[in-house]
């Protein structure tokens, strides 16, 4: 019988009266890879931090945390410090903030080695994570997100631990970079026969890396098993909701958009170019959106897709080119621009920040009406819009402040605020990216229903090819300011012609 390298027995954590982790039992054999999935607030990160006793002092921990058979909870400080990083290390979420910004990364990697007296060199570690040696002298801000995450991995391996805990290691990264970082991690775990406890909200990421999968929900462990089995046959409804939230490209079951009739053009973008100082963010883009059509604009961050959307909205002045809406060129200022803005509405990525925290739902939704002086009968218009956004009954929500609502509800408020002006086109910038997996499906369904009922056209800007597959009629792929490929969803996502589209598709983790 092999002693598990990590074993949690009846682990419970609470802050005051608030219980975050409840009675979790979990064991990890040496060399085993285990994914821990769950939405935000499910307690998965608390579990990870409790392993090295890194929870804040206010946390009250019960149960046993056995690391190589020793209970972390009862160790002396000296022993604990010796165990930290040598027995188990952590790849933290958001390498951006987890690295000391004023220390060279080489120094940060070397620090635990000196401390624990382990051999090895920084150069070797950097080589393992496929970073050039010179980067040791770099400061964190001089590295890209992927490079920083590799530094974190190198650091985690510095003292040769038998167990690595990775807490959302790729969350903030682009698909392509995410694939590379996951690749490095996977390879190292396999090569060095490490135990890996990986925590993520993204099932597909876990599915790609881990043999075993555990799912947490509201502080409890609800499911545990081999990854393939759990995904294929989820026993717990929450697991099922999670799996459903990550559409599989090419799977007709995940394609929710019904085929639209051949549309007439509503918005036409002709040879549009936008400059930021000397950089050309958008470079000669042609794009057409038909009435009632949903177009997905996909691309990596920095590809210029957000700038393009802002320019279409008239929030940025293009350097050249034209935007034609309903046959008329979009004015650049004055009353005409204001009138145009009634027709086109914006839905932003993070609903929490898109709503003024001091305004009630009613104020937020009515804002457009007030701006345009359409305030007569405000009450009923607002109520209608809110109910249309599926916040029923509206009276329950109207006086609420944004922070009293969940993320999904907030996004519905934003959508209601757009709907109240009865627009014809919705520009949605990453509308579901910041939402929990179980909620995103509902918002996608709402957008589709609005199209069906109101004939509302949408331009969905996203980095998520799965979302495009789920919702869009047509897809445009943007790369370095240019649209490199566009066409129907099936055509672009299933039979890509451009190398970049293929690269994007390859990077999508497969369940």
């Amino acid at each position, binding site marked *: 019988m092999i002693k598990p390298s990590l074993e949690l027995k009846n682990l419970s954590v609470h802050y005051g009266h608030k219980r975050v982790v409840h009675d979790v039992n979990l064991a990890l054999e040496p060399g085993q890879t285990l994914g821990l999935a769950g939405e935000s607030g499910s307690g998965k990160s608390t579990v990870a931090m409790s392993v090295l006793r890194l929870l804040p002092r206010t946390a009250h921990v019960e149960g046993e945390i056995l690391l190589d058979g020793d209970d972390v909870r009862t160790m002396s400080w000296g022993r604990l410090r010796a165990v930290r990083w040598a027995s188990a290390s952590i790849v933290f979420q958001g390498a951006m903030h987890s690295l000391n910004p004023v220390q060279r990364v080489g120094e940060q990697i070397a620090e635990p080695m000196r401390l624990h007296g382990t051999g090895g060199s920084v150069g070797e570690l950097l080589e393992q994570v496929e970073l050039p040696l010179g980067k040791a002298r770099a400061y964190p801000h001089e590295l890209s997100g992927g490079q920083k995450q590799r530094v974190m991995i190198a650091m985690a391996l510095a003292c040769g631990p038998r167990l690595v805990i990775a807490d959302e290691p790729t969350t903030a990264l682009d698909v392509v970079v995410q694939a590379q970082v996951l690749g490095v991690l996977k390879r190292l775990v396999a090569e060095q026969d490490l135990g890996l406890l990986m925590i993520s909200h993204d099932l597909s990421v876990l599915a790609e890396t881990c043999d075993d999968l555990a799912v947490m929900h509201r502080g409890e462990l609800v499911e545990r098993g081999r990854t393939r089995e759990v995904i294929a046959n989820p026993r717990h409804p929450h697991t099922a909701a999670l799996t459903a939230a990550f559409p599989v490209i090419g799977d007709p079951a995940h394609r929710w958009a019904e085929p639209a009739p051949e549309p007439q053009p509503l918005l036409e973008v002709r040879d549009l170019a936008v400059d930021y100082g000397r950089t050309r963010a958008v470079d000669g883009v042609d794009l057409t959106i038909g009435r009632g059509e949903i177009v997905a604009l996909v691309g990596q961050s920095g590809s210029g897709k957000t700038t393009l959307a802002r320019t279409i909205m008239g929030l940025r002045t293009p350097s050249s080119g034209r935007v034609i809406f309903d046959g008329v060129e979009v004015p650049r200022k004055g009353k005409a621009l204001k009138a145009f803005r009634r027709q086109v509405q914006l839905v*932003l990525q993070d609903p929490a*920040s*898109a709503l003024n925290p*001091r305004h009630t739902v009613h104020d937020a939704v009515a804002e457009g009406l007030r701006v345009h002086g359409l305030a007569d009968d405000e009450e009923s218009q607002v109520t209608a819009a809110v109910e249309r956004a599926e916040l029923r009954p509206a009276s329950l929500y109207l006086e609420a402040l944004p922070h009293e609502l969940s993320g999904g509800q907030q996004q519905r408020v934003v959508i209601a605020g757009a709907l109240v002006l009865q627009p014809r086109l919705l520009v949605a910038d990453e509308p579901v990216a910041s939402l929990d997996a179980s909620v995103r499906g509902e918002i996608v369904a709402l957008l589709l229903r609005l199209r069906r009922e109101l004939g509302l056209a949408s331009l969905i800007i996203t980095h998520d090819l799965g979302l495009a597959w789920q919702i869009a009629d047509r897809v445009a792929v943007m790369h370095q300011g240019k649209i490199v490929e566009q066409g129907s969803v099936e055509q672009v996502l299933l039979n890509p012609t451009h190398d970049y589209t293929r690269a994007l598709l390859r990077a999508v983790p497969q369940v």
Partner: protein
Amino acid sequence: MTGFRTRWFSRVGRGDGAVGGFLAHRAGVAGAVVLAVAALVAVIAPLFIPADALDVTRVSDAPWQAPGLGHWLGTDHAGRSVALLVVQGAGTSLFVGLTAAVLSVGIGTLVGIVSGHFGGLAAGVLLRVTDFFLVLPALVLAIALSTVLPRGLGTIVLAIGLTSWPSTARMVRAQTLTIEARPFVERARALGGGHGHVIGRHVLPSVLPLVLVNATLAVASAIVAESTLAFLGLGDPTRISWGAMVHQAQLHGAVPQRAWWYLLPPGLAIVVVVLAFTLVGRALEAVVTPKR
């Protein structure tokens, strides 16, 4: 340092956890109570002080009496009761502190919002002017101003108000820029909202709580500033203020006579009231600043 203290550390409240917040609040409540008492004293007490008691031409008590039964805080160089003087001085000090703070914060808020919201040349010039005033040693400028203008409370208020607004302007401008970068402002713009809408509905309401905090702390520094000017002999000599009392104490040789009872009370009054304003400001800040 000088009477002109910038309010850099006003970010203290942020980052405090629940415990720190509670502490700040408790101290803030104490501060508020002190201020309420001080305000009450300033308004009501003069009504009960007999006119003769503070008229140097009428008092008949011996000067430089140490605290005792007759005058429990002693008497000053003219035989007036120090206790009564301190009570009488509260009004002037509080009045100058409040009005100067309102003036300073008013200018600062206006400049801050305008330079933060509008780009272009005007904002550039405003910013330049703000930076320039930030560079000028405020005390030097205030002394110069109070020398130029006729003596009086108005001058003091003006001198303090006109020299202490830049820090508020900076803060408000930064906050305005932060607010303007928020997606909800972009959403308001996308909805078709103009300058008036964005400033009135979003920027101003978001800035106001911070302005309030700033104003509270500004009162604190304005009171210290008033006392400094009064100490340097630039105050309104016909009025009793705490700073003026210290000035008088020095003028008439309280230090060599070891007349601690003359020197101590006005200074302590300043400390207590300024501290109270600071505590209230910090508590307000802890309440106003959203928890991260």
